[in-house]
């Protein structure tokens, strides 16, 4: 009697769960990209950061990013948004104060935990490898920020009316934000603001290119030099490579 009841209950349970889950599944993959697109699978954006060329006191990339993407910072260390930021590292292993200055940004992983976590696919990986937040869709649950092992995502706790770049939108409060490798510039054939600024300040430490193109500058660098990525053991396959870390 007990077993029959259990079997009956489990049958109803599984049928109900499958049936109920089938309904949202019908809408689930609608937003996945369909066939022909400009962001093709042949293109795979990556970035190399040459720390040997990155000067300690230079924040050209940070300032350019803020200007291009209309990000306003007010000195609030808790709530300020920095799509790219410069940190100073000090060694914990050797006694002498060995310092390094490192830009940190979204790593545009090939297995992005944030895109896996986003319940509405507002954060997703484009076919060309850029991990991007769709600010039209994001509902501000902040699970992507929880899931990112690099703390590379921020949230608009406040409204942002700052707009030094009129060609790019401002920000309302309540959506998540992260570096999108200036996808709006890359799509037009230009380079991200940070890369452009780094070149203009004659440091040339940031290089963005197509990882799938064997003749690109970035592919050559990665092939011929020992590069390292952040937290590689996590299996997220980040696409920002550090030279000299």
């Amino acid at each position, binding site marked *: 009697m007990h077993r029959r*009841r*259990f079997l*009956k*209950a489990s049958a*109803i*349970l599984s049928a*109900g*769960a499958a049936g*109920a889950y089938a309904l*949202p599944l019908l*809408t*689930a993959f*609608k*937003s996945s990209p369909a066939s022909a697109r400009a962001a093709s699978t042949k293109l795979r954006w990556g970035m190399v950061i040459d720390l040997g060329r990155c000067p300690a006191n230079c924040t050209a990339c940070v300032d350019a990013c803020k200007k291009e993407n209309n990000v306003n*910072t007010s000195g609030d260390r*808790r*709530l*300020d*948004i*920095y799509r790219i*930021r410069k*940190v*100073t*590292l*000090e*060694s914990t292993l050797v006694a002498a104060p060995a*310092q*390094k200055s490192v830009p*940190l940004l979204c790593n545009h992983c090939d297995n992005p*935990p944030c895109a896996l*976590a*986003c*319940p*509405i*696919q*507002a954060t997703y990986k484009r076919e060309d490898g850029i991990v991007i937040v769709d600010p039209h*869709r*994001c*509902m*501000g*649950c*902040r*699970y992507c*920020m*929880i*899931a990112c*092992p*690099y*703390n590379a995502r921020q*949230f608009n*706790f406040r*409204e942002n009316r700052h707009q030094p770049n009129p060609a790019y939108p401002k920000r309302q*409060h*309540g*959506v*998540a934000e992260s570096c999108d490798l200036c996808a709006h510039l890359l799509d037009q054939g230009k380079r991200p603001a940070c890369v452009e600024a780094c070149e203009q300040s004659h440091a040339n430490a940031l290089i963005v290119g197509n990882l799938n193109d064997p003749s690109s500058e970035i592919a050559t660098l990665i092939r011929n030099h020992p590069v390292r990525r*952040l937290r590689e053991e*996590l299996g*997220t396959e980040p696409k920002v490579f550090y030279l000299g*870390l």
Partner: protein
Amino acid sequence: MDIEFKQIEGRSKPFYLLTIALAALVLAGAYSTWMMNQHGLYLSGMSNRIPWGLPIVMAVFYIGLSAGSLVISSLYGVFGKLEYKPFARVATFMAMLLMIGALLSILTDQGRLDRVMVEPFLHFNPLSMLSINPFLYSSYILICTAYLCVMMVENEKWTKILALIAVLWAILVHSGTGAIFGFVPRELYTSSLLPPSFVAAALSSGTALMILVILVLFRLTKRPLAPKPMLWIGRLLAVFIVVAGYFVFIENAHRYYVAASRAAEHDYLFGGFHSVVFWVGLVFLGTIVPAAILLERKSGNSRHSIRRVACASVMVVLGVLCERYLIVIPGLSHPPGLIPGWMITQSAVEEGIVNYCPTSYEIMQSLGVVALVSLCFIWGLKLLRLLPTEAKGMSHG
């Protein structure tokens, strides 16, 4: 056994005063939610490093309480113990309301309320834990409602089936909630033990809450309550506490033993506010003391024992609240080890260990949800036949 279920009178002055007080709290919570949604979440204590705070802690707390409340009604529905039939309806009603409170807590915490109502239905990501879980939570509410309905119409066959479905679904709900945190690659989050640990803590906190609710309700409405079923549940609660404590122990021992997470775990166990909450709130007052009280085989009079069970239950509920806090916040306040061997000394944003302190807006919002659940509960008792006129118990189980 023929039990008569009757509504509470609900016409006394304290009842109306309580209603007014709770309604005021609900309004205050609604106001602070509206303010945070209108002006931005900077009004809360959260930051880019700690994006989830008190509302999510309360949400996972309610989820735990909800499934645990079902334990008492499942003792009747699944295992057929007739001396718990008097409590089955109240327990299921409580489970339903607590889950609604949990969903409300999560909902009011979102950045864009206008999109939360629309986007998850249009663009569903079936792999995200935050999609799977609200699906489980809402279906759990429906199952609990159906279960309550079949109990009210006294349909024995469907009561048994739905009770089993509800219990199995509750386990699924909790494993899912644990997976929200356990399946995320942060040092103090990632763990395969979090789902079962969640289930264990849910069972203990929910049972404890139901014990308290039953004792208080029967005392306030002056309905007779036999002590023996309560004492037996008290011993069951002791088992749940021990199992939950076992999971906590294994998880922390593993994190400390393994070199990769040892630094983070050391900060968690011995450095700062979390440690006090852990050792005093969770381990001592939440696990060891109540387990000792409940497992003590003292043959005193049962009134004294009931008081001990009630005391232990209060401690367990508060201890599990501490545990929910410890699951959510320390994992976020500890920094990820981005570059091993190097420490970040200068940055434009917060690095290293950060602290979180809820603001009055968050506290008011959470109190508002508590008040709403309580308000619906006491008015449900008045409008529906949920409480038995007496629970004398049976001499044989």
